[in-house]
């Protein structure tokens, strides 16, 4: 069943702050095999002008996707999550995420389309720090594949 177009533009409440920890950044960098010292060594980060270790560029997805759960699981929207695949992902950075950040995410439904029976949902997540500074925007395109009988 096609999703309700009237949800386009809907803005969900900001998430509670997620505190970015040095060890979580280290864990993520190790999981992707990235040995850049700027992710684990505060001195190396400072040498590049950062006040603490920074996170790899895609680290913030874990936070924005969790926030997008508000949209995905919105019973009024009625998305069938068991059929969802990740279509596109994009980030625009004002500055890198760094240890000590307390980040909130505000999710907005940017678009709803129906293509060949597939529901295509575009969600924008605006990430701000504790001072209200904009840090990064994440755009996530989710595609709910058509059911076979449709």
């Amino acid at each position, binding site marked *: 069943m096609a999703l309700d177009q009237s949800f386009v533009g809907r803005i969900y409440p900001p998430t509670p702050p997620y505190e970015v920890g040095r060890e979580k950044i280290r864990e*993520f960098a190790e999981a992707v095999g990235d040995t850049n010292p700027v992710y684990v060594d505060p001195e190396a980060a400072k040498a590049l002008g950062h006040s603490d270790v920074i996170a790899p*560029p*895609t680290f913030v997805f874990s936070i924005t996707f969790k926030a997008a759960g508000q949209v995905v699981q919105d019973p009024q929207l009625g998305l069938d999550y068991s059929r969802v695949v990740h279509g*596109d*992902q*994009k980030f625009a950075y004002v500055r*890198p995420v760094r240890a000590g950040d307390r980040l909130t995410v505000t999710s907005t439904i940017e678009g709803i389309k129906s293509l060949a029976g597939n529901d295509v949902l575009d969600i924008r997540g605006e990430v701000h720090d504790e001072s209200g500074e904009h840090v990064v925007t994440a755009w996530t395109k989710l595609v709910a594949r058509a059911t076979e009988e449709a």
Partner: protein
Amino acid sequence: MTAKVAYESVEVGTELPAQSFPVSRATLVQYAGASGDFNPIHWNEKFAREVGLPDVIAHGMFTMAEAIRVVTDWVGDPGAVVEYGVRFTKPVVVPNDDKGALIEVSAKVAALLDDKQVRVDLTAMSEGKKVLGMSRAVVRLG
């Protein structure tokens, strides 16, 4: 931001050093834990086959994380990345054997922009298939 590559030193067509990233089942379990994405299609082949996949597949976000390393290793400072986007076109299939899979990433400068920024277009392949489409980053050089 302190990129070690000077804007003046590159032109359209400049190639970044290519890299290959091995992926095993152990890699995917480790990434699941670090990212919090425990979808069983990334570690349970019975489940993956039941939903129509050929085998366990890598997290798209894992592939996205690997591909940008070609850019961040080139510039030195990952904080120089201004934009990064991809389309997930084909899954990276990861068999349960000694080899796993390989993600091969190449990249080149596609456009010179204002404010010492350049657009880099990335190509990510696995088993001869393009696994990322429209894969591009904007990065601020020194």
